[in-house]
């Protein structure tokens, strides 16, 4: 009888620690996710796509209302200036000033590259949540780029529509920003790495403002995002994200 109750006690204790740990990890990820997101935001971003034999830089303004709405206004290069992308739930529209026309991207084109970048139109509308679509486990603590970090393994839940097989996320211990994310495919091979640096205060928060996405199989290519300005909890509502407003935003 005593042995049984000890056994139960031990089992319960282990279960609690496991749950406790995963709660911990999820909490960390949640905090780090909330750090760079807010219900609504406005950002000015420079995106540079580096390919083996060419590079392309786009600067844009980005309004978003999580999780369903976003408008992206291209400010450079000159040829693309004024192009607007509107995301409403699962759909994407483009306003093309050269043709004075709004085009809804048909499903067959959703997997095409967006503005010549490494992102597809589908990436824009995908609404997977790092926090809720994965099961997080704290693997340990590690120093990365001078910061003490939590190293967290995130495995997608079976019903989550996620292409990755696993993520490894390094989150700064005190500041909660993500410094590095490794993306693995379903066969556990590393596919790409995200590195965040140039950490400074922007929009009232201390965050990495220079993001790099590095595809592992093409070492001389990458995509860089530089945040020039960001405003969290920007005053904007659903009516802003309309087809009509696409033609008006500047």
């Amino acid at each position, binding site marked *: 009888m005593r042995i049984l109750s000890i056994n139960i006690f031990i089992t319960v204790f282990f279960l609690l620690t496991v749950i406790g740990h995963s709660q911990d990890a999820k909490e960390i990820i949640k905090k780090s996710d909330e750090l760079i997101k807010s219900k609504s935001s406005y950002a000015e971003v420079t995106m540079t*796509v580096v*390919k083996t034999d*060419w590079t392309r830089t786009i600067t844009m303004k980005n309004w978003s209302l999580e999780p369903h709405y976003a408008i992206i206004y291209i400010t450079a290069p000159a*040829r693309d200036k004024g192009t607007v992308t509107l995301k409403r739930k699962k759909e994407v529209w*483009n306003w093309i000033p050269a*043709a004075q026309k709004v*085009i809804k*991207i048909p499903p067959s084109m959703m997997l095409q590259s967006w503005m*010549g970048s490494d992102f597809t139109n589908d990436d824009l509308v995908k609404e997977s949540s790092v926090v809720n679509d994965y099961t997080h486990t704290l693997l340990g603590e590690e120093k990365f780029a001078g910061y003490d970090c939590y190293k967290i393994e995130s495995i997608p839940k079976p019903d989550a529509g996620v292409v990755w097989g696993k993520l490894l996320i390094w989150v700064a211990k005190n500041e909660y920003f993500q410094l590095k994310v490794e993306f693995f495919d379903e066969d556990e091979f590393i596919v790409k790495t995200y590195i965040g640096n140039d950490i400074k205060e922007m929009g009232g928060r201390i965050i990495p403002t220079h993001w790099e996405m590095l595809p592992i199989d093409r070492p001389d290519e990458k995509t860089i995002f530089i945040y020039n300005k960001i405003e969290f909890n920007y005053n904007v509502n659903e009516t802003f994200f309309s087809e009509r407003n696409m033609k008006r935003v500047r």
Partner: protein
Amino acid sequence: MKTYLLLAWRNLWRNRRRTLIASASIFFAVIFALLMRSMQEGSYDYMVDASVSMYTGYIQVHAKDYWDKRSIDKSMKLSQTKICKIDSVKHVTLITPRLESFSLISYGNVTKVASIVGIDPELENEMTDLKNKLIFGKYLIENSKGVMIAEGLAKLLKVEIGDSIVLYGQGYHGVTAAAQVEVEGIVKFTLPALNKTMVYLSLDYAQWLYAAPNRVTSLSIMIDQAKKINEVHLAVRNLFDEKYEVMMWSELMPELVQSIEVDNAGGIIMLGILYVVIGFGIFGTVMMMTAERTKEFGILISIGMKKWRLSFVSFLESLFLSFIGVLAGIIVSIPILYYLKQNPIPLTGEMANVMLKFGLDPIIPFRFAANIFVDQFLTVLVIAMISALYPLSYIRKLNPVKAMRK
């Protein structure tokens, strides 16, 4: 030796009717096999020719990896001297540059994905006969800033001549390619795959739209004789380094190669059956001839003729017989095949409609080439020789006394 030949020859004409019947069976067999093979190979030649001149050309030059990626980023810049060099390769008749890409095409509320092709209007017409496919409006000219779109696509978008459509896609190195252009012409293709997707621009305008000045994604090359393809392919490939890929139609259209192979396998089985029938025909005739002459053989051997001499003479007879049949068959079929090659048999009715649907003329074409004659000549001759072995073994086993009593 001369005596044997003379003997064999005389023996043949001793019974003129028998000889004529025997060689006639070979004669018809040859004509039949030739017709069948010529028709089959002719239809393959025609399929290839029709397919390459519909779009791809016999040979295409691209920048390396273009064919896999189909991306305008894998386009190439070619100098005029390079093109002149290709032009000077023997058997090359035409070189057509193209800048191809996929883009959205939009009119009103309808948006479709289309295959956008920048062309040199005159060269394209020479190669694919595009001008004849124009049903409304006018044909593109050099520097034209309008588009010509396929009839099926025009219907889907509900556009007519003079309407302005929007093209929206990605240009060279990620540049946005967007423009409003006027529909100048509507072309009708018989192949639905083309009729629902093709949009033509002038090459200059396409290069501007896709921000790819002086760039093309492919050069399509036409040649005057399909059988010289390997020679031309090698010569063209030698003009380019490994940054380019030079592909033959068989690599560009593997599905066509496959369908030809499947059909050809069927054809070869039919031909095999035909050969078996021919073989038994010839063998039957030879057997009959031998049986008919049993008494003659018996007498010859009993008065001292050596068996091997007799065998040799009868072998020569079979050989002559086969030669007469095969040669006569070939001589007669040369003009027939030549005529059929020049005047293919027209098809009518259901079959004709099917062929028209695939963009082919409704005809049964024939091939007129030396290899067909040589192949049939050798095959039928070998069959005849094998049949000629029968009298040899018959004579070897012959008992003269029994033979004479027959």
